[in-house]
């Protein structure tokens, strides 16, 4: 069968060879650990500890607050040093719990206990996922227990595991797939237990043939799990693209995958679900890629949450050249930061250092070549949307579906005139969303006053 693909998309320099073949190194923290209360989509968690309190490995130090939120679990044992505002990789100051490590790694009771996960009730599985503080580890950080609780679970036809890892340079998912494929397959089986008629799909880009082979071998006996080789093209791992390519169903910005009968989870999230449900191990670690042409020894590290990126970078030999730009996340959608003295959070999948800043180029006039349109995976007209954004023409911006933009960056990447297409469109979109939010708040106030 010819592989289906989505429209648009780009081929970039992959940069994965820098770090993909080195085994993941387990790294223990040296300094204090910092746990921001907001490292997921939704409301910040509420702290359960106070300054001076002792904590253990696996202990919940902050609790989900409200419907969409997530628990935060300590990755070390020690004492709470402070609860204060600290800088995060997103460039914001966030209220954080700072823990001094006693280096004893005393665990809470029941940590790591095996559970008979194939006979657990659905409610127990969901509870275990919620308890463990699991959020989408691919980068968005949507609380997983919310995802696993759709309005109508009988309507779910596919559980899709995202192993595309389409962002250049990142190899943390690849390393996980090579080193712990069983955890991913078992994790998928656990999710499938929640949805009676669902079929499992593991989607992996075909630039990782060894991973595809490995998963095919592991799932050969599973009748309802299929491994799909996806075309290597950015943004193959985008939710809308992945759902379309694996199932033929189309999403837009207003629809969740569950609306078209799909549940999508990143491989690391699925492995975390397995650890939480089968091994009673909450989410306290993740794999982080340290890469880029400025890094001495690009590789992956398995690190506890809260550890500073400075320590991880040191373990990778530091920078061999002073980088011009450092990026948290992939080069297409990641955030550039002015410092790497920030803690690892649930959604922090990498630190990249680049000798040259390719994006530091001057804009020139649009020549209407249409490359941005041809490469847009959502079939938008970025060149027009950018002009509308620059002119504050929000009405037409919305009419031309600017609000659908997923911010993948393809348009800016291909623009021969170096125009800041994605940048302006995303900014305009966020501005409109913020206004809408403000308006809603205002209406609420009025309603309350009336």
């Amino acid at each position: 069968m010819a592989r289906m693909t989505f429209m648009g998309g780009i081929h970039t320099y992959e940069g994965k060879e820098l770090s993909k073949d080195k085994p993941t190194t387990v790294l223990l923290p040296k300094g204090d650990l910092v746990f921001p209360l907001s490292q997921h989509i939704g409301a910040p968690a509420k702290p359960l500890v106070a300054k001076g309190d002792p904590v253990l490995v696996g202990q919940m130090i902050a609790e989900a607050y409200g419907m969409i939120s997530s628990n935060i679990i300590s990755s070390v044992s020690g004492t709470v040093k402070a609860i204060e505002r600290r800088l995060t990789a997103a460039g914001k100051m966030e209220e954080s719990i700072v823990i001094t490590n006693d280096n004893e790694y005393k665990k809470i009771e029941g940590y790591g206990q095996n559970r008979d996960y194939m006979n657990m009730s659905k409610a127990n599985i969901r509870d275990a996922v919620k308890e463990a503080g699991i959020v989408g580890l691919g980068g968005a950080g949507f609380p997983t227990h919310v995802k696993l609780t759709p309005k109508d679970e009988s309507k779910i036809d596919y559980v899709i595991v995202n192993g595309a890892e389409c962002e250049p340079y990142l190899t943390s998912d690849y390393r996980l797939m090579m080193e712990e494929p069983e955890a991913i397959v078992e994790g998928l089986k656990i999710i499938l237990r929640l949805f009676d008629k669902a079929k499992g799909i593991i989607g992996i880009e075909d630039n990782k043939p060894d991973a595809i082979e490995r998963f095919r071998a592991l799932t050969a006996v599973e009748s309802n799990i299929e491994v799909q080789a996806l075309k290597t093209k950015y943004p193959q791992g985008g939710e809308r693209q992945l759902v379309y390519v694996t199932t033929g169903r189309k999403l837009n910005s207003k629809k969740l995958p569950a609306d078209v009968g799909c549940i999508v989870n990143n491989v690391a999230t699925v492995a975390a679900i397995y650890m939480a449900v089968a091994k009673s191990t909450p989410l306290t670690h993740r794999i982080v890629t340290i890469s880029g042409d400025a890094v001495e020894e690009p590789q992956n590290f398995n690190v506890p949450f809260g550890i500073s990126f400075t320590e991880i970078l040191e373990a990778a030999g530091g920078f061999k050249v002073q980088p011009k730009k450092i990026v948290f996340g992939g080069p297409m959608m990641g955030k550039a930061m002015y410092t790497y003295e920030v803690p690892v959070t649930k959604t922090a999948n990498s630190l990249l250092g680049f000798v040259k800043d390719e994006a530091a180029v001057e804009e020139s006039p649009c020549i209407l070549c249409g490359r941005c349109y041809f490469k847009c995976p959502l079939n938008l007209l970025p060149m027009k949307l950018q002009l509308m954004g620059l002119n504050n023409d929000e009405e037409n911006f919305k009419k031309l579906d600017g609000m659908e933009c997923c911010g993948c960056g393809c348009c800016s990447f291909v623009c021969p005139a170096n125009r800041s297409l994605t940048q302006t469109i995303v900014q305009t979109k966020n501005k409109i969303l913020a206004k809408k939010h403000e308006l809603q708040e205002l209406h609420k106030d009025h309603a309350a006053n009336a």
Partner: protein
Amino acid sequence: MSDLYNVSAAPHVRSPIKTNSIMQDVIIALIPASLFGIFNFGLRALLVILVTVLSCVVTEYVYCKLMKIKSNPWDYSDVVTGLLLALNLPVGIPFWMAALGGVFAILIVKMLFGGLGQNFMNPALAARVFLFISFPGRMASFLVDKVSTPAVTDFLRDGALVLDGVSGATPLGQLKAGETVDLLKLFVGHIGGTIGETSALALLIGAAYLFYRKVINPIIPFSYILSFAVFALIFGGHGFDMNYLLGQILGGGLILGAFFMATDYVTCPITPKGQIIFGVFIGIMTGIFRIIGSGVEGVSFAIILGNLLVPIIDNLTRPKTFGKERVKDVK
């Protein structure tokens, strides 16, 4: 200060293809046709090319200086305009006329409307049409053979230039008069016409390079040529006469226009559907001008008319957003 990291919004990587590399590709693609023009018409063709390119570059530079606009001299778009203009001119054109064409293309059509990317019609074609309307006699006298290169002093009193070349009817003129043409000669290009339009072979080599470099896509050229061929088949009055059809396709400015002028990014529609509509429209218009109209050539007029319709075509062929229904009425 240099130790600080750059901070900017994503994405942080850029494709190596830039505006100037695209323009350079177009120039490279036009080299075979230019060389053939020089080979066919003699060194004077080279001088015409130099005059128009220089006049375009200088006009843009002076305009930017006077208007205090930061000019981008390395985007080569002015060179492309000058080169395309020269290829659209007869070799015997007085140099001052060629230079005037360059000034018109850059100043009136491009810069006054906002510069690169803002022109509503192809500058080179607009200039050609301007010259054609202003100096119909000069623009329509084509030569078949080489012109001996005049001495330096002759450049200055250009109007008095003695042309040694044999002037003759272009293939399209012959076809209009009901004669047959030598197709091989047509394809190779040893015929009368403007400097760059005669050799279909050289133009197709250049076009193949542009396809290979993914600078242009084949939608417009093919829908254009195909729709024109169908029009000629139906209304040409010759039925299915290969000599007539191929003569019409290879004989005039159609190949040059279809691959290099109609595909101009700025003045063609964005979506594939819009590009098909555009190609078919200019194909039919070319047919009307050439076959029904009184003239023998109509590519320039057809493409320029097509250029004017581009905003409307773009609006009618708005793409459908992934996962959503089509939107209408966007101003």
